[in-house]
């Protein structure tokens, strides 16, 4: 019953999306303009209906209704509650429903609150949003119905992939989805603005909270995904340039560029076409990413949802939306008038430079990801990895970070070099000093980690400079957001450079009682024994580790065996200190009874993820600042409207 109800709501929501699109398009013609009134309520109702459909699917998973095919093939009655819940979106159909749900809720929310844009542009935006949603409705209802029943209820479910049974991963996909979908709103705004030729500060201000929100979630999603790969896969690395990682990085890069160009458009009415273009590109990258992951066109550790027919469907959607949007852009871009001009030395210029560099990184990541496909079409097999991505992205990232240190202290429109001499000199001196220390004390170090170690402290100093000379209590939240976000980049860079320069690894076959030296740690394997979890059994090693002769701490790395479905997973153990992490992995047992153990000492590695979280926090502060101002404005507008109404009576 619940399943049928969910399906019915989904169909109704799809029908409403058709209505939203049709009414929106017709409302843009003068003859049928009165239809405009329909669009907002329909968008809101559509959001509510899909939310109910999604709630129905969650209910089916939580109650483990084994007559539903999706539940039977992805869940198991003995699974812990949290993974039953996560099972809802840990599969293709459920994740697509989640995507549509977030998308429609966001559309409904725009319809509810957006009052700044010209009504015409908003209607076009909502029509665009309905158009995008419709593709996903069609995909769900025609090709991947999550509510399909089995002819006979299954006796027991097949369970969830052991790799996905992890708390971090339970929340990693939804986080990225919110990010992707937020970018779909930005995309719809860009389409709406292109259709009505209304690209200006109002458009940028309306779009900015959505871009910010999406960007915060993407930042968190990438940070969490990186940490998940780090501790679950047991390889000790934190970024592998895997196609799926790249697929999440590319929208982030585009969104970062969009965020900054939005600021220019909102504050200075410049970079109009560029911002619209980025709005299209950011969502395109989300869809390209989804396509690359889901179609299985690139082999990857993440490809749990591979199916060529689904690939074709997403490719079709991609061609229609992105091709359509780019065509619209090509036709309309020449009619969007150029915005305000600015001098070479100005904050706008710094932001343009940052945008170009971000797009450069985006380009090289896209090329690197697609390159194997290109050579494969010519009959040559290659794989592209860190030896390409690291140095080539650094070529763009390093100049970007140097400009990032200066940009925030520049004035809008035009500035003079003399005014900012000190603000440039101080971080430059810090960086030079750090480079000297690194080269004198720690040489030889590879070039990139050495540059990272030098730039990070300079960037950290530079990022707090915009606060110097300000009244800290009256500084607007978005300024704090920028400062903390930039500081987060410096912190993450410091972690990356340290990991690259100073990690030590130790592989050993050990008997209980044996000791090994790993960096500053002395590790002793004390014991190995079996242990049982809710739906797994594991061998657990007890390892004591003492830092530089200090008191010992116990680590318990495990090798877990799952029964439903059968599978193995290493559960690495981490010992975090303020200055780094000890990472321990339990391997297999040899015939002589010795155990394969793997240890890493990674100085300052957690800073990579602390940095990521700081970046997200910066975004959050900026968002709160912007939204607070918008709310104040909305309240004021409502008051005026209410007064007018009273006077009119």
């Amino acid at each position, binding site marked *: 019953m619940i399943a049928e109800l969910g399906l019915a709501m989904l169909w109704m929501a799809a029908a409403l999306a058709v209505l939203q699109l049709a009414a929106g398009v017709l409302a843009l013609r003068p003859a049928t303009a009165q239809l405009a009134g329909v669009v907002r309520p329909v968008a809101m109702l559509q959001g509510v209906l899909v939310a109910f459909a999604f709630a129905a699917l969650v209910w089916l998973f939580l109650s483990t209704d084994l007559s539903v095919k999706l539940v039977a093939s992805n869940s198991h009655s003995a699974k812990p509650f949290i993974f039953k819940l996560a099972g809802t979106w840990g599969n293709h159909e459920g994740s697509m429903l989640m995507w549509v749900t977030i998308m429609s809720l966001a559309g409904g929310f725009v319809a509810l609150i957006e009052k700044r844009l010209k009504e015409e542009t908003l209607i076009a935006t909502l029509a665009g949003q309905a158009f995008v949603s419709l593709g996903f409705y069609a995909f769900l209802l025609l090709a991947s119905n999550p509510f399909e029943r089995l002819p006979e209820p299954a006796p027991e479910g097949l369970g969830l992939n052991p790799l996905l049974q992890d708390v971090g991963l339970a929340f990693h996909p939804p986080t990225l989805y919110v990010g992707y979908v937020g970018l779909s709103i930005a995309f719809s705004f860009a389409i709406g603005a292109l259709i009505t030729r209304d690209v200006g500060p109002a458009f940028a201000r309306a779009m900015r909270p959505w871009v910010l929100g999406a960007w915060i979630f993407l930042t968190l999603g990438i940070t969490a995904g990186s940490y998940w790969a780090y501790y679950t896969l047991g390889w000790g690395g934190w970024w592998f340039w895997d196609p799926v990682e790249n697929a999440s990085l590319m929208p982030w890069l585009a969104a970062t560029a969009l965020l900054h160009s939005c600021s220019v458009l909102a504050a200075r*009415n410049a970079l109009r*076409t560029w911002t619209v*273009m980025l709005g*299209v*590109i950011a969502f*395109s990258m989300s869809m*390209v990413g989804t*396509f690359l992951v889901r*179609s299985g*066109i690139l*082999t990857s550790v993440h490809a749990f949802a591979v199916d*060529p027919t689904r*690939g*074709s469907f997403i*490719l079709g959607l*991609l*061609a229609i939306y*992105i*091709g359509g949007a*780019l*065509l619209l*852009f*090509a036709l309309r*871009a*020449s009619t969007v*008038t*150029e*915005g*305000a*001009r600015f001098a070479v030395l100005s904050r706008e210029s710094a932001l343009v430079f940052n945008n170009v560099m971000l797009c450069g990184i985006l380009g090289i990541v896209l090329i690197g990801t*697609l390159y194997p*496909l*290109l050579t*494969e*079409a010519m*009959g040559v*097999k290659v794989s592209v990895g860190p030896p390409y991505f690291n140095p080539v992205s650094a070529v763009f990232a390093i100049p970007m970070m140097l400009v990032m240190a200066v940009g925030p202290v520049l004035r809008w429109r035009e500035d003079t070099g003399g005014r900012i001499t000190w603000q440039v000199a101080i971080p430059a001196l810090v960086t030079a000093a750090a480079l000297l220390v690194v080269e004198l004390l720690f040489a030889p170090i590879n070039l990139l980690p050495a540059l990272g170690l030098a730039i990070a402290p300079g960037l950290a100093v530079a990022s707090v400079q915009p606060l110097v000379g300000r009244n800290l209590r009256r500084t607007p939240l978005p300024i704090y957001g920028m400062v903390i976000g930039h500081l987060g980049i410096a912190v993450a860079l410091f972690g990356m450079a340290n990991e690259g320069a100073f990690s030590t690894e130790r*592989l*050993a*076959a050990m008997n209980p009682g044996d000791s090994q030296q790993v960096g500053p740690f002395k590790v002793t394997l004390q014991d190995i024994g079996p242990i049982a979890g809710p739906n797994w059994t594991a061998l657990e090693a007890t390892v004591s580790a003492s830092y530089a002769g200090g008191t010992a701490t116990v680590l318990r790395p495990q090798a877990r065996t799952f029964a439903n479905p059968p599978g193995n997973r290493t559960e690495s153990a981490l010992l975090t200190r303020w200055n780094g992490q000890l990472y321990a992995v339990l*391997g*297999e*047992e*040899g*015939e*002589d009874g010795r155990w*394969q153990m793997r240890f890493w000492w990674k100085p300052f590695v957690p800073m990579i993820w602390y940095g990521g979280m700081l970046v997200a926090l910066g975004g959050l502060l900026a968002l709160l600042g912007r939204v607070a101002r918008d709310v104040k404005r909305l309240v004021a507008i409502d008051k005026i409207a209410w007064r007018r109404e009273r006077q009119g009576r």
Partner: protein
Amino acid sequence: MSTEAAKRPGLAVWLPLGLFAGFLVLVMVGLYWPADREVSSAFIGKPLPAFDLPPAADDRPGLATAQFKEGGKPRLLNIFASWCVPCKVEAPQLAALAQQGVEIDGVAIRDRREDVAGFLAQYGNPFKRIGKDDLSQVQLAIGSSGVPETFVVDSKGIIRYQHIGDIRAEDVPMILRKLAEAE
């Protein structure tokens, strides 16, 4: 400082659409005419990269590329480590091959001399020479991504075959055949 100057962007605005069309063509080729996905070594038919490794055991010399070019019979090059479990499983097969007169050289990956000595004492020593590769440099240079792996190298130092994973008893005849083909 003018603000609203009109300027025609020209052909540049079509560039994104053109790039996107290129992307579509590329992925359609990849999706509908997928090439063979099996990864075979790109190093087969290529000469061994230049290396000169110090000995990993007291009673065997180290290993250098030059030694493979001295003529004679094709040889096996076995990548192993004392900490590697499948290497232990593989030991009887290597011993059997050595007994049939096959010359086997070893490269010990990320290992220590005392561990290698213990390993050879326990599982036998089929190797003529054993090089010590502490940073996996030689391993990576010849296109090996794990332990154990075994290469058939002919008398001119050309790689003729790469076996990934441990050699099982049923693989021995195939290895012998590959050695014969490399003559």
